[in-house]
């Protein structure tokens, strides 16, 4: 059987739109160094490394070997995992599996991206099937916009409802010294920003960021010696779907992958009323409408109730279940690191290291990852060893 695993340290860069002062390896090293400092470990203590980023973004294929001087992986067990938007969460889960298996005691998970090094939309389009989908596909924004149009039609949600999510996340980012976008915004700012792809406007969607994140996972017995409050992995769940767009979208049923992944994770973590039992959520919300719709798929509220749930303040910092104290993806999006940042920020909350963005007394934290054509990863962390 698997053994309990805790997160004992996290590190991230100070995220920016362009980091010409470092190459990818040097940027990775910044996050790794900070994670090791946080866990009070040296690279010699690390038994294995899992790393990931987006294929085609920097045009580097064997990132595991290419990165070793930054990751610290010289002559260590290291492998690359890449699953699109979920990469960071999948990297985290793979590191968790490494430790839970009993084969490794201390494993480093790394996610990174230098979005500035290519045309992000063009790079994302290369994920689509070259024969069938690539001709009409135009990157993440319009495929998310299709979901938004279907959701608005189904439940009558408005563009103003969606804008509340950007306002919440961008204002939360002011409490996070690492966040990329640190300017407060209003609903009017969102509504008046340029229409990119109806109904998504510039301020409805995540930025492009250069940044990296690293997280140290340690085994039961090791973790407690490294920190007095590890963030224990209570559950991890992965539901990945097709790579043909028309097969993975079922607007009548919602984001099925997230429904299934969260249902499984809740079961493993013993959670029956997520909005009551989870203290804080770091959700991979790449655009505002997800902040209305996907909390329904996560069971925070009923179908079609997302806008009301948010408007009533339930997801604010002092609400029933604060969402994205870090500022979330709408404030920082170094894609291969983005889902790992969700896990790291959830761990920071459980470990009580959140500073100005700390949710008081957070004991159970939810992190999600979202990928490409609607697939999902879910991670639940807790203060108590499972």
């Amino acid at each position, binding site marked *: 059987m698997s053994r309990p695993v805790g997160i004992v340290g996290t590190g991230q860069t100070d995220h920016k739109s362009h980091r*010409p*002062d470092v190459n990818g390896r040097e940027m990775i090293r910044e996050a790794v160094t900070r994670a090791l400092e946080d866990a009070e470990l040296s690279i010699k203590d690390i038994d294995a490394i899992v790393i990931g980023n987006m294929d085609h973004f920097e*045009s580097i294929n064997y990132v595991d070997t290419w990165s070793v001087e930054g990751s610290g992986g010289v002559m260590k067990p290291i492998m690359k995992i890449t699953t699109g938007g979920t990469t960071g969460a999948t990297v985290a889960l793979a590191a968790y599996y490494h430790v839970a298996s009993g084969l490794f005691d201390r494993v480093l998970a790394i996610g990174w991206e230098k979005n500035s090094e290519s*045309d992000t*939309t*063009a*790079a994302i*389009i*290369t994920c689509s099937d*070259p*024969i*069938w*989908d*690539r*001709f*009409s*596909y*135009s*990157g993440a*924004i*319009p*495929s998310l*916009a*299709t*979901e*938004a*149009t*279907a959701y608005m*039609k189904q439940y009558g949600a408005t563009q103003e409802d969606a804008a509340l999510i950007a306002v919440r996340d961008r204002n939360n980012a002011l409490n996070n010294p690492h966040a990329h976008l640190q300017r407060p915004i209003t609903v009017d700012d969102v509504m008046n920003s*340029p*229409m*990119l*792809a*109806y109904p*998504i406007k510039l301020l409805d969607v995540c930025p492009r960021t250069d940044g990296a994140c690293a997280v140290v996972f340690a085994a039961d017995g090791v973790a407690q010696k490294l920190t007095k409050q590890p963030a224990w992995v209570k559950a991890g769940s992965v539901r990945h779907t*097709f790579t*043909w*767009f*028309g*097969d993975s*979208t079922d*607007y009548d049923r919602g984001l099925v992958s997230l429904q299934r992944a969260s249902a499984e994770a809740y079961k493993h973590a013993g959670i029956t009323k997520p909005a009551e039992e989870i203290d804080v959520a770091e959700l991979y919300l790449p655009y505002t409408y997800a902040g209305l719709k996907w909390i329904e798929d996560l069971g925070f509220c009923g179908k079609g109730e997302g806008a009301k749930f948010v408007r009533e303040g339930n997801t604010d910092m002092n609400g029933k279940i604060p969402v994205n104290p870090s500022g979330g993806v709408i404030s920082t999006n170094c894609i291969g690191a983005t889902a790992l940042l969700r896990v790291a920020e959830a761990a920071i909350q459980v470990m009580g290291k959140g500073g100005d963005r700390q949710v008081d007394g957070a004991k159970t934290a939810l992190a999600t990852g979202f990928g490409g054509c609607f697939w999902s990863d879910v991670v639940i962390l807790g203060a108590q060893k499972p």
Partner: protein
Amino acid sequence: MSTERNYDEQLTVKFTYPMPYRWSVGEHGSVFFNEIKKNRRFVGVRCPSCGMVYVPPRRVCGPCFRELDEIVPLTDEGTIVAFSTVNYPFLDPATGVQRPIPYTYGYIRLDGADNIFSHIINETDVSKIQVGMKVKAVFREPEQMQGNIQDIKHFDIIG
């Protein structure tokens, strides 16, 4: 010896060249494009286990993990399930140049199919497009067809 460190410039190295690929369409996919050329209609494939009709046709049903071989003739019409009109510029990796904008990306449920087909809807005024509208494919002239997705020029809204 000492070296000047303060050049005040962070350099980047550029790569701007095309890299060609050649992708296999597969047996059922080749039937799909030949049917467009000869009969100006779509075909799908039915799964013997779950009964799903997929467009474009493929050899395997993902959820059932079953081999598929029952090609199902469809028409050239369908219904808009979702859409978005794209206004921002981006590089098209299929051509190496910027894709013409605005254009409308549409998810279309072809009549008789169970999954969604993605293509272009020939309307960029969002006030004239609604989920649930009927659309009809406009194909290239047969002599211009190349056996690829662009043999379908776009879908016209018909009601």
